[in-house]
C-alpha cells in the first residue's frame, strides 16, 4: 500500500471541517443534511483507514454498520424535511419556531 494512514486521516479531517462549516453557516435544512452526510462519511473513511492496519476485519464491519445506520438517519431526516416544508412552505430553519419558548 503506497498511501499512508496519515494521508487518509488528513482527508477525513478536511471533510470534517467542511461539514462543520456547513452546519454553522447554512440555514437551509437540506444543505445542513448534506453537511451531516459529509461528516458521517469522514468518520467512515477514518474507520476503514484505521481498520486497514488491524489483522482482522473489525474496522470494515463497523463501517458497514455505520453506513446502514446513516441510511436510516437520512430516511428520517428527509421525511422531517418534507413535514416541515409542508407546515411552513419554507426550508429556512430560522422559520421553524413552533417549539421556541
Amino acid at each position, binding site marked *: 500500500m503506497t498511501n499512508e494512514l496519515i494521508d487518509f486521516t488528513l482527508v477525513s*479531517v478536511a471533510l470534517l471541517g467542511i461539514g*462543520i*462549516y456547513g452546519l454553522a*453557516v447554512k440555514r437551509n435544512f437540506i444543505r445542513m443534511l*448534506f453537511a451531516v452526510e459529509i461528516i458521517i462519511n469522514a468518520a467512515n473513511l477514518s474507520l476503514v483507514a484505521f481498520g*486497514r*492496519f488491524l489483522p482482522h476485519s473489525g474496522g470494515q464491519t463497523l*463501517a458497514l454498520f455505520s453506513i446502514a445506520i446513516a441510511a436510516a438517519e*437520512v430516511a428520517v431526516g428527509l421525511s422531517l424535511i418534507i413535514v416541515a416544508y409542508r407546515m411552513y412552505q419554507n*426550508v429556512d430553519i430560522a422559520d421553524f419556531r413552533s417549539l421556541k419558548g
Partner: protein
Amino acid sequence: MADAAFLALTVITIGSAIAALELRSLIYGSIALMGTLGGIAGFFFLLDAPFVALFQLAVYVGSIAVLILFTVMLVKRELIFKKIEDKRRKFAGIGLMMVVMVALGAVFLDSGIKTITTDEPPVDFRDIGTDFVTYYWPALILMGLILAGSVTGALVLAKREDVENDQRTN
C-alpha cells in the same frame, strides 16, 4: 507518499464537498454530494476494502443521493435556487473550519500515526460475511429492525392527513 490516484480522489472528494455546500442550485448541490460519496468509495477501494466500497456505492450513491434529489424536487422552484445563509456567520464558520482543520491536523501530524506502516494482507471479504453471521448476528438483527423501524417512521411522518386516500370509491 501518496500516489496519483489518491491525489485525484482527494481533489474530487473535497472539491465536490465544497461545491455541494456552496453551489446556488440545490439540484447541482446534491449531484456534487454524489461526487463526494463516490470519492469516498474510491478511497475505500484504495484501502483494499472493495466490499465496503461497493456497499457505499449501492447505499449512498445509489439510493441516498437519489432520495435527496427527489426530496429537492418536491421543494418550490424559487427555494431551490435561493441561497439562505447568515452573512455574518459565514466568516465565523470559515474561522471555525480552519480552527478544526489546523488543530486536528496538527494533532495528527504530531502523533505517531506518521510512522505506522503495515505488512498485513488485505482482509478477505468472506471474513466480513462470516463475522456478520457469527459474532455480530445480534447486531445484524438489531440493525435490520432499526432500518425497518426508521423507514416505517419516515412513511408515517410523511403521510398526508389532509388528503383522502381512499381509492375504493373510484
